[in-house]
């Protein structure tokens, strides 16, 4: 019987939520790695029981965990992330040079074709790859060596490489996003990279032609149309129709265009979801009302989805990796909050129900559609 497995990373451990295809009753397992930050977990598209998890702690550093049975059991694999060559410097908050220092893995992206190949987006921003199931990691140094690395600087949460999009129609094309450097694209499997930020604007960047420095929060694509990308920028929601060569704003009638996650409906490439947050200094929903906004027209026109979500006294945040969709016939949409709730919709977002209410702060949510 088909079903859904949600991989929920939290501030105090990993949780695995499973349901059949009705998605009415959920089994909650966890915490795995109790007490540790689980920044992200993700399963292989070609072997759904092969999972990878980023486990870290201010005390004990970074671990990578791997499961071969859908998260029932785990084993630690390689955790040695060494920058290629002399790491050099990027800009610090005060615009002074600061040495590159590995801190943690923000995002793990398994290959579309090989369960033993997985990419890791790390802080300080760099892209690593393992081809042996996470046992060893090698940096793809062309990204930091692209030429602009010395001008990248951290966002408020650090200088993390947080989004990795593998293009299903161009095997050697990868998009990544870094806060606060921007979007980069490779067309040769990571050897060379270009900044892809034309059309982005930021109040703190006076140069209208700046190529990097943008606090991109998240980018998303629909696999059937990988040349179309959607972006939640620090402020502004954006789209690109030419594989990130240029971007245009689609914030339209959103109540605020600040936010973190952005997702695309599994079967409708022009249906997208964001969760507006009041501002960069007030990380909670406007008016204390938790609302998902959906556009069925690829942006510009947005509708508030409120049924089942708290519409008063709600002051949680939803982080950039904490929203996901499944690919069942009726698309499921999921998100987790810093208040520990994981909400699910099984009707395209029209209505929502909490699967769990009292987890630790949710850092990431991934949805696996099981055969």
């Amino acid at each position, binding site marked *: 019987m088909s079903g859904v497995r949600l991989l929920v990373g939290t501030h105090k451990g990993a949780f695995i939520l499973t349901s059949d295809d009705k998605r009415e009753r959920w089994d909650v397992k966890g915490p795995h790695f109790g*007490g*540790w930050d689980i920044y992200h977990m993700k399963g292989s598209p070609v072997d759904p029981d092969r999972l990878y998890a980023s486990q870290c*702690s*201010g*005390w*004990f*550093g*970074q*671990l990578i965990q791997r499961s071969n049975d859908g998260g029932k059991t785990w084993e*630690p694999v390689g*955790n*040695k992330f*060494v920058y290629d060559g002399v790491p050099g410097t990027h800009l610090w908050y005060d615009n002074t040079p600061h040495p590159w220092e590995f801190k943690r893995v923000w995002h793990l992206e398994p290959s579309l074709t090989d369960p033993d190949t997985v990419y890791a987006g790390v802080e300080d921003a760099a892209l690593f790859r393992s081809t042996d199931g996470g046992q060893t990691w090698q940096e793809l140094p062309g990204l930091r060596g692209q030429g602009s690395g010395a001008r990248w600087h951290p966002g408020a949460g650090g200088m993390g490489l947080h989004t990795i999009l593998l293009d299903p129609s161009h095997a050697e094309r990868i998009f990544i996003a870094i806060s606060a450097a921007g979007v980069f694209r490779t067309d040769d499997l990571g050897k060379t990279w270009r900044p892809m930020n034309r059309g982005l604007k930021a109040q703190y960047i006076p140069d209208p032609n700046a190529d990097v420095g943008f606090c991109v929060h998240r980018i998303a694509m629909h696999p059937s149309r990988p040349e179309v990308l959607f972006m939640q920028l620090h402020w502004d929601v954006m789209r690109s129709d030419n594989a990130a060569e240029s971007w245009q704003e689609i914030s339209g009638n959103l109540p605020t265009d600040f936010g973190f996650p952005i997702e695309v409906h599994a079967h409708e490439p022009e249906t997208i979801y964001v969760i507006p947050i009041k501002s960069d200094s007030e990380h909670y929903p406007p008016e204390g009302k938790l609302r998902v906004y959906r556009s069925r027209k690829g942006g510009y026109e947005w509708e508030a989805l409120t049924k089942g979500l708290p519409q008063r006294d709600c002051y949680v945040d939803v982080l950039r990796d904490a929203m996901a969709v499944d690919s069942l016939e009726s698309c499921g949409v999921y998100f987790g909050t810093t208040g520990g709730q994981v909400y699910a919709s099984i009707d395209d977002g029209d209505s929502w129900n909490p699967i769990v209410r009292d987890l630790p702060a949710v850092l990431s949510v991934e949805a696996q559609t099981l055969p």
Partner: protein
Amino acid sequence: MIRIILPPHLRTLAHVNGEVKLEVKGQVTQRSVLDALETSYPMLRGTIRDQVTQQRRDFLRFFACQQDLSNELPDAPLPDAVATGTEPIFIVGAIAGG
């Protein structure tokens, strides 16, 4: 036999209960003890000291015989009581946060 008391998270990670007991060849120092520990429990690599610089992680401390040995040189001999197994060496997570 060297006795090591790990912080709870690392005991869980290494699947050990109570003390870890290890044979250490040659002089008993922080480095030789951690080398032996990581050889027996490879999942601990990188959690106590950086894998490249070999520096102690900032929020961990080493104590033995009622002394803070955290800032001793890695190759300095540990106290005889540790070397003979009379006293354990404690690896302690710093108290940080609320």
